[in-house]
């Protein structure tokens, strides 16, 4: 009988070409996802603390010092509850919907550059990828609303779906203006692209539109009709309990962080120190990135504490009759101004 020879070269080759890259990718993913999930948990804490401070309350104080362990306690509580699947619900779709929502909110992070070169997939079409993933978020909601086999959940699902679809249009046009100034769909290039100050000024209205659309897209106040607790019964998630509910909830917070990250990458200069102050670059890039995300998230929370909820028809009017024409106009204006100043990307090379 032949002795089984252990072909070292062959296995080394397998290891080098397949296993090692796989391990590397898994390692990178863990490095990104674990801090993200912690950030998400503490975003719920931050939200309660910020709201409390703005309303002259204390917020969570009991669990741990300053209530710092509150997110953990909430998570444990949710885990310990019973998952109820309503009778007559479409089981598979019902369970699938929250998983899909949560997955999509994580998948998008693959292309976000956290610092110089710190990105899992530095693909050429990063912006399109982000747009594609964020346009899929509506499925989780539609599926949840439909599979619950409940009128309230179904109406809630339709309501949120219409809202998300409406604001996606203006987000798409905002992305187009940003692309006009950078000439690349790669997120790293968008961050590092040097923009003259007048281009930033030109982009400022788009920044405002983007932040407002992001609020609507993530179902945050003042557009939180999908879960308007005080005047509507819940929404698409009214039949969900325990972990299935938690996944929706967490997916929503993750989407908030994602939208803040998109704002940072597209408008606030990603990991670069603010205002291009060279002395500040001693602080590592990911710290600036996190700080900028935190700032945008604070604005999200601030809005929630400040503004009353929109009525549904006003929300639709804002999306279709104000943002859509305005962004469309601004795409043309930006293109025109850039063309007039010979500042379109690749133009000076052609001239």
């Amino acid at each position, binding site marked *: 009988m032949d002795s089984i020879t252990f072909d070292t070269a062959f296995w080394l080759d397998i290891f080098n070409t*397949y296993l090692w890259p796989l391990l590397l990718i898994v390692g990178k993913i863990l490095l990104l996802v674990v801090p993200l999930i912690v950030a998400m948990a503490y975003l719920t804490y931050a939200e309660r603390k910020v709201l409390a401070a703005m309303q002259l309350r204390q917020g969570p104080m009991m669990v741990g010092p300053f209530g710092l362990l509150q997110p953990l306690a909430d998570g444990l509580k949710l885990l310990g509850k019973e998952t109820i699947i309503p009778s007559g619900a*479409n089981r598979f*779709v019902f369970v699938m919907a929250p998983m899909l929502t949560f997955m999509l909110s994580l998948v998008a992070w693959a292309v976000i550059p956290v610092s110089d070169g710190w990105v899992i997939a530095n*693909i*050429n*079409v990063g912006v*399109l*990828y982000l*747009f*594609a993933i964020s*346009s*899929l978020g*509506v*499925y989780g909601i*539609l*599926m949840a609303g*439909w599979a619950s086999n409940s009128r309230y959940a*179904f109406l809630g699902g*339709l309501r949120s*779906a219409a809202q998300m*679809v409406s604001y*996606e249009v203006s987000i798409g046009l905002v992305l187009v203006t940003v692309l006009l100034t950078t000439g690349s*769909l790669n997120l790293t290039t968008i961050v590092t692209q040097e923009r003259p100050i007048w281009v930033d000024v030109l982009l400022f209205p788009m920044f405002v539109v983007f932040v407002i659309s992001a609020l609507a897209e993530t179902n945050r106040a003042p557009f939180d009709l999908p879960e308007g607790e005080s005047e509507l019964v819940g929404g698409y998630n009214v039949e969900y309990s325990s972990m299935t509910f938690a996944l929706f909830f967490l997916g929503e917070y993750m989407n908030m962080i994602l939208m803040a990250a998109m704002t940072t990458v597209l408008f606030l200069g990603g990991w670069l120190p603010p205002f291009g102050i060279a002395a500040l670059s001693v602080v590592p890039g990911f710290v600036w990135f996190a700080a900028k995300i935190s700032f945008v998230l604070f604005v999200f929370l601030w809005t929630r504490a400040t503004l009353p909820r929109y009525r549904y*028809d*006003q929300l639709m*009017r804002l999306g279709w009759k104000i943002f859509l024409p305005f962004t469309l106009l601004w795409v043309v204006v930006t293109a025109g101004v850039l063309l007039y100043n010979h500042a379109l990307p690749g133009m000076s090379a052609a001239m």
Partner: protein
Amino acid sequence: MIEAVFFYVFATVLVLSAIGVITARNPVHSVLFLILAFFNAAGLFVMLGAEFIAMIMVIVYVGAVAVLFLFVVMMLDINFAELRKGMMKHAPVGALVGFALLAEFTWMFKSWSPSSAALNGVAQPIPDQAAISNTHALGEILYTQYVYLFQISGLILLVAMVGAITLTLRRRPDSRRQSVAGQISRRPEDVLKVEKITSGTGVF
């Protein structure tokens, strides 16, 4: 090797979900299968190196078209048993049409080859992928060589959209709309009257 594995995974799931679209009993499941099929097609495009088309596929088909499908299908109130009743009656007609189509296609593709004029009209193939991203390559062809055709197809879509709106738009006299301008231009003196009332006298 790994490419082959991924290709077969995408291709198998694509074909299976395409079969699922036409065999699922519940139309909502059909649409969900359709979405899965779109996704796997996008995966195949990525494997071909056509990342732009893959993303557009997801954005346009999954993100927009299938959402509308799902909207419509979810709101349909269909009696499925009723629908399935005529199945056997209509099966021969369906089979006949299918057979005719198949015959036509076989006949056509057996004798089909692009004319020399068409071959000359084909724009230069996409340049080396390392030199230019395929978004740039597509843009350069679409906005130079085919700019008029591109604009015309855009106009056709616009006309279709306007047509759909004009066909379905109806003025409803009983709907009460918010008049924002009216609300903003409303002044207290127009709607409020401040009366000084001394005790013992009424307003009127």
